[in-house]
C-alpha cells in the first residue's frame, strides 16, 4: 500500500487490488483515526478525507502506515449475511450479454445468481454500488452508446461489475433485469442498502 498526499486535507491509499481496498475499508471502519471524516473506497484506492480543525495529513499518515488490510479480509466477510436482490430477468440487453458470453439467456441468469457478490465501492449516483463477483470472470463491455434514461431498479453489468440503478438516470451498462427493491431511500436509515463491503445475492423471481 502506498500513501499519497491528496490536497491539504486528504490522503490517498493506493492498493494492489480490490481485496486490499475492502480489507483496508473494513479495518478503518473499526479503527478510524481521529479527524478522518470520510473513508471512500474505489477500485484501487481508499481516500481519507480529514477535518483540518482536528488533525493533519502527517498525523493520519503515521496512524495508517501500520494498517494491515489482511485483518479486515474475507474471513469475516463470509460470515456476514447477504442482501437479497430479487430480479426479474427480462432486461433489454440480456440477449446481447448472452452473445458476448457465448451462451444462452438462462445461462446468464444462472451465472448471475449462482454466487455471492460484494459491493466494492460506490459512486456515479447516491447509493449506486459497484458489485464484484466472488467467482467467475465477468468482463462485459458497456453499451456502444449509453441510454439517456435507465429505469430505476435496473440490474446491469459492465466490465467486471454488476450494479442496480437506484433511480432514473442516464446509463451505459448492459441491462439484464429489474428489481423492486429500493436500493437507495433518502428517508431510510441507512439510506443505501448497497454500501461498500456489503454481500449481495441476486435471486431470480417471476414478474
Amino acid at each position, binding site marked *: 500500500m502506498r500513501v499519497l498526499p491528496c490536497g491539504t486535507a486528504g490522503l490517498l491509499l493506493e492498493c494492489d487490488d480490490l481485496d486490499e481496498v475492502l480489507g483496508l*475499508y473494513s479495518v478503518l471502519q473499526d479503527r478510524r483515526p481521529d479527524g478522518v*471524516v*470520510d*473513508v*471512500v*473506497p474505489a477500485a484501487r484506492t481508499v*481516500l481519507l*478525507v480529514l*477535518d483540518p*480543525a*482536528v488533525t493533519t495529513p502527517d498525523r493520519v499518515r503515521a496512524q495508517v502506515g501500520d494498517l494491515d488490510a489482511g485483518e479486515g479480509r474475507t474471513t469475516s466477510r463470509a460470515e456476514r449475511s447477504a442482501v437479497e436482490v430479487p430480479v426479474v430477468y427480462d432486461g433489454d440487453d440480456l440477449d446481447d450479454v448472452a452473445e458476448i458470453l457465448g451462451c444462452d439467456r438462462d445461462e446468464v441468469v444462472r451465472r448471475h445468481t449462482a454466487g455471492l457478490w460484494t459491493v466494492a*465501492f*460506490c*459512486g*456515479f*449516483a*447516491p*447509493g*449506486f*454500488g459497484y458489485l464484484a463477483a466472488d467467482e467467475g470472470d465477468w468482463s462485459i463491455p458497456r453499451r456502444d452508446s449509453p441510454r439517456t434514461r435507465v429505469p430505476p431498479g435496473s440490474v446491469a453489468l459492465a466490465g467486471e461489475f454488476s450494479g442496480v440503478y437506484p433511480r432514473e438516470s442516464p446509463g451505459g451498462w448492459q441491462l439484464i433485469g429489474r428489481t423492486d427493491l429500493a436500493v437507495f431511500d*433518502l428517508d431510510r436509515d*441507512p*439510506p*443505501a442498502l448497497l*454500501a*461498500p463491503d456489503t454481500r449481495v445475492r441476486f435471486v431470480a423471481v417471476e414478474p
Partner: protein
Amino acid sequence: MTRHVVVEDPGPLTTVQDHGRSGQAAIGIGRSGACDRASYGLANRLLGNRPSAVALEVTYGGLVLRAEDEVTVVSTGARCPGAPHNGPVRLRAGAVLRLGVPVSGMRTYVAVRGGFAVDPVLGRVYAGDAVPAGERLLGTSAYGQAVPVGAGASTRRLLVTPEPRQVALAGENLQPHLTTVAAGGTVEVADNAVYPQSLTVTTTAPAGQPETELHLVAGFASLATLLWYVIQLGWHLYGASDE
C-alpha cells in the same frame, strides 16, 4: 421572537445552504453545502450564529429580501451593490434589501442572526434547494451574543465554541505563532500596560488543563482590529462579554 423575511426576488438563483455533511461519501453522497465555505463561515461568525446556521447562497446578485420583522443581516463573498457587506446591519420591519450584480465573484452569502429554520435531510439541509420568489423564511433564535467590533470597553471575556480553533498570536520573538485554545476555554483580551499598542490575551483552559498567557504585539493596535482578525481566522465568538 419570530423573525420572518420574504424573498421577493431570488435573482438568477438563490439556494439555502449550510456547511453540508461529511461521512456519506462512501455511498456516493458528496459533502455539498455552501460553495464558498470561507465566506459562508464568515457570515455566520459575524452574526454570532452557530457554524452550521443556514444561509442564503445568492448567485450573481439580484436578491430582493423584505424583512417582515426586525432582523440583523450580513452579506459576504462576492460584494453586491446595496449589500451590508462584511458588516451586519439591522433591518427594520418592512425594510427591503436589494442586491445588485457583483462586479467580481459569483456567490454571495446572505445570513440572518440565528440562521434560517429549514427541515434537515440526511441530518443537514440538502444543498441546492432553490428559493422561489415569494418564499417566506423563518429565522431561528439559536445564536450567541455576537461580540461587537469597535465597542468601547477595553476588556472582553470571550467563550470559545465547542470546536477547537487556532489563533495567531505574537510570541516573545515578535513573530506570529499559532496556539490552540482548548474547547470550552475562555479568552480574555486587555490593553497591555507594558507594551504600547499591544494587547494581552489570556486564555483559560477548561478545568484540568494548563493556562497560558500570551502577549500580542504589533499589528493589533485596537481591540476592534484584533476581533476582526480572529473572526477572519475562523473563531466563533459566542458568549457573554463583561463590561
